[in-house]
């Protein structure tokens, strides 16, 4: 137990901050994923074939390629891509991107592909009459999606989004390969310096279980709240 003490002697406070980091990365990635989903869902549902193609390309590629490979692409390719863009604007210094941003972006794009599929399914299960009613009332395409369809869709999407959240939370463990100090990385450091990997990795597993358990409780409450009146 002294291994988990707070302060200089134990790893308690380090692991506590690492857990906060995992939560921060997961939430950021989930939000980035939502942004991607809000862009790509309309593309997938569009009546234009070329837009469909872009949407399908995104979800197929991201869901068919290992998460770790996507993370390596961002980790090794991220700063190169930014430097390339910067060089167009005449800036040639070395640019290093923060591991938090790279990691959240990589996980966010992955989570976005899953969210897109969830949103698409939820929109397709909304009654056609809603679309027609909006059209009859002369509501514009944009307002129709963001003011009428989106709020109704969110209620239907919550159960599946909770799965996406679980996937995202677990995927953040993979960012440890880039050196960002979250639960996995901190356990790796602690295991290395105390030579007690069994204890620290098991403790990491407990922390992840705790996070998934608590978030499920929270989501169930949210679900109950949004399905009031149904």
């Amino acid at each position: 137990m002294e291994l988990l003490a707070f302060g200089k002697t134990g790893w308690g406070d380090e692991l506590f901050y690492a857990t906060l980091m995992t939560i921060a990365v997961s939430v950021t990635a989930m939000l980035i994923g939502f942004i991607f989903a809000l862009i790509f869902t309309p593309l997938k549902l569009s009546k234009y074939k070329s837009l469909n193609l872009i949407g399908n390309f995104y979800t197929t590629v991201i869901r068919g390629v290992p998460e770790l490979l996507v993370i390596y692409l961002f980790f090794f390719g991220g700063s190169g891509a930014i430097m390339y863009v910067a060089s167009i604007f005449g800036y040639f210094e070395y640019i290093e991107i923060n591991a938090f941003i790279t990691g959240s972006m990589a996980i966010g794009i992955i989570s976005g592909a899953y969210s897109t599929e969830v949103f698409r399914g939820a929109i397709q299960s909304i009654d056609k009459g809603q679309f027609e009613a909006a059209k009859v009332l002369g509501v514009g395409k944009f307002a129709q999606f963001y003011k009428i369809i989106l709020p109704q869709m969110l209620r239907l999407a919550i159960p599946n989004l909770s799965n996406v959240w679980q996937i995202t939370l677990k995927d953040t463990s993979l960012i440890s390969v880039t050196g960002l100090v979250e639960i996995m990385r901190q356990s790796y450091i602690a295991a290395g310096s105390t030579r007690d990997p069994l204890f620290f990795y098991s403790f990491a597993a407990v922390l992840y279980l705790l996070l998934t358990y608590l978030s499920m409780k929270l989501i169930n409450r949210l679900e109950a709240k949004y399905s009031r009146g149904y």
Partner: protein
Amino acid sequence: MITSLPKLLSATLITLKLLSVSLIVGMFLGLFFAILRMSKNIFINQFAYGYSYVFRGTPLLVQIFIIYFGLGQIEYLRSTFLWVILKEPYWCAIIAFALNTGAYTSEILRSAFQTIKPGIIEAGKSLGISSKIIFYKIQIPIAIRQSLPAYGNEIILMMKGTSLASTVTLMDLTGVAKYIISTTFKPIEVFIVAGGIYLFMTFLIHNLIKYLEKKYSFQ
């Protein structure tokens, strides 16, 4: 880009080996735990639930690290025959993958068993078939057919999961891709080739499952 292709293709064989062995072991584990889940004994039932809860609630990376780095720490294990297996990263990865996919498979099979209509089992009983044969010859085939779509997704998830073998020094497709990226600094090109190979495998698995679904449909 072209010169790295042979290396990546030979690494694909390792990925496929990891995938197939862990899926076969995981299938048996999944069936075993699905049967335990349906037991009326609350301890057996809760044990199976705990297994699937823990393995589905923690990242695969943690599971591999516990098995590869953690179990080697137990002195007692080092003196048993298990150490022959546990000192190899290959077998550690397979144990972790099999346990992980076993947890998901047990959930898939459990829900498939629950969707079997009671009338089918009753029909078997009224024909005088013993409950053992009803289970093996009626319930299991129907459950396998019911779970095909969900199991297809699980195969694809597991295929992506095998990429984590690269974290315990195995040179699978992702491991080799990372090595080539870090030596040539051409992340996008390597990503396109390695990602293309993964996508091709996803495509094959997807179509295989579709074919099986059609072949074994009830009509």
